[in-house]
């Protein structure tokens, strides 16, 4: 056999094995986390863990509801802020903006996506916390130190801007131009075209993009840890309450408290919870987005 063909074959087999192994990383992570959460799952029922908010590891009480609610509050605030803004910016960039303006805005959005979470956290502490403490909270007659789910939500919202805008632009570019031009030529204004044609056509992709952004917000750790002020587990009751989301629970306690029985298992269960939720969200939305993309090809 020709030496070149042999090389080709050997390289091919090696790369196939590497490809398969690398996909196995996902399985390995899931299995590892599940295996380490087993001790907790054997002692408590899943529904108890998810619906109780009593968190006293030293007494053997592991209720995750407070952390889950913390995550949901922060994520909800982030999406409420980011979604309309990003939608408007994306429509502007794809339908209205002059190409020169687009060439300025898109790179800025790219640069924003390159900023590490810890810097968002530093900025949150320097800018958002004082803003909430001195200017926003007093209007609502609430005493807030600034460290709150609102602060976490605002910082997270900015962190997901780049992801949302990039995805929206991709989804919009999949809508056939002819359809938009047909609407315009019938005398519809650009905004009517956007409302009646673009958004309608792009809806599935937009929902998928939003789900992807939600799952990104779910897992963000360090920036949220720096501005949410969560030290005591509990369910937040207003946007000015401090929050203690799931990733923060792991970051705050992991690696130190292994003398308490089941504590490490509980923290890895939190990680497993994040992994499973985010995995499912991601898988569903990616499948939808691939379908959307295929339509243009």
């Amino acid at each position: 056999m020709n030496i070149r063909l042999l090389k080709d074959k050997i390289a091919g087999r090696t790369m196939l094995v590497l490809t398969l192994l690398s996909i196995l990383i996902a399985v390995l992570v899931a299995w590892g986390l599940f295996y380490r959460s087993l001790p907790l799952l054997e002692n408590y029922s899943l529904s108890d863990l998810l619906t109780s908010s009593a968190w006293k590891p030293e007494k053997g009480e592991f209720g995750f509801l407070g952390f889950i609610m913390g995550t949901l509050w922060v994520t909800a605030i982030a999406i409420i802020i980011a979604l309309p803004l990003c939608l408007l910016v994306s429509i502007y960039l794809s339908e209205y903006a002059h190409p020169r303006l687009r060439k300025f805005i898109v790179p800025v959005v790219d640069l924003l996506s390159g900023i590490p979470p810890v810097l968002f956290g530093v900025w949150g502490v320097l800018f958002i916390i004082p803003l909430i403490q001195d200017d926003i909270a007093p209007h609502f007659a609430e005493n807030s130190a600034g460290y709150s789910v609102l602060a976490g939500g605002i910082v997270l919202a900015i962190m997901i801007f780049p992801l949302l805008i990039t995805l929206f632009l991709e989804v919009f570019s999949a809508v056939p131009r002819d359809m938009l031009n047909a609407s315009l030529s019938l005398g519809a204004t650009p905004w009517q075209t956007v409302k009646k044609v673009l958004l309608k056509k792009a809806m599935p992709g937009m929902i998928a993009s939003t789900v992807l952004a939600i799952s990104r917000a779910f897992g963000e750790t360090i920036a949220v840890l720096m501005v949410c002020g969560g030290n005591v587990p509990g369910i937040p009751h207003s946007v000015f309450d401090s929050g203690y989301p799931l990733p923060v629970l792991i970051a705050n306690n992991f690696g130190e408290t292994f003398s308490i029985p089941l504590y490490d298992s509980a923290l890895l269960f939190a990680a497993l919870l994040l992994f499973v939720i985010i995995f499912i969200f991601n898988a569903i939305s990616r499948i939808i987005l691939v379908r959307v993309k295929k339509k243009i090809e």
Partner: protein
Amino acid sequence: MKAKNIEEGFFKILMIISAFVVVGSFFLIVGTIVVKGAPAMSWDLITKVPSGGFFLGGEGGVLNAIIGSFYIAAGSSLLALLISLPVVIYINAYLPKRSWLGNLTRMGYDVLFGIPSIVYGAFGFTLMMYLGMRASLLGGIIAVTLLVIPIMIRTMDEVIRTVPNELYEATFSLGATRLETAWVILRQVAPGIMTAILLAFGRGIGDVASVMFTAGFSDNIPTSLNDPTATLPLAIFNQLSSPYEDVRAKAYASALILTIFVLIISVLARLLSKRFSKNKV
């Protein structure tokens, strides 16, 4: 004026305001860090390791953390490249365009791309305990490698998929094997691969959650893979939680250092990908 025109104008103004908010947020973040960080910036901060009691307001700098972060980012980018490159070559040059394995791999990495770094950190730490390793440079590199592999694979794959089919056909028709074709393709997309490496490097240098348990923390510059090491983002985080104003000021300055690094890397990555698009055949 018709109602539809009023609506048009109203939403146009809203869109312009939103664009200002989004673009402004970037400049606000960088601006805040520059304004707060610049006064506390000093030569000592970049060139010295922390002396005793650094977090209580003592002398010294964050050189240990800068070097540690570079080691981790460089090590994990290299390791990730060694794993990603064969995978990307395989799914593009060896597999047919619409193969189920290729699609499954792409889908898998898209999903892994969304898994948060804290999960990789927790998993990495569990893995290290299982292997009997302590928090160390190597542990940090492994955790960050897991984090950046999906970024690298997805970025390189996107670039390689823009290579026109004719290039494949031309090399095949000259009698090249698939492996030899892969080299031709790789040379064509070399700037794109550099972009992928830079993106991975930028992510690796800035991430905290994956290294906080796996790399540990140390006041010294690591001399071997088994030494625990400080990282710049974690140093910023630690300094910021200090009650002393001096130490917090150093945190702002350290944040400025990290901002400069990350912006340089991002801009380089963008410039390279621009060069790539110019080379289109």
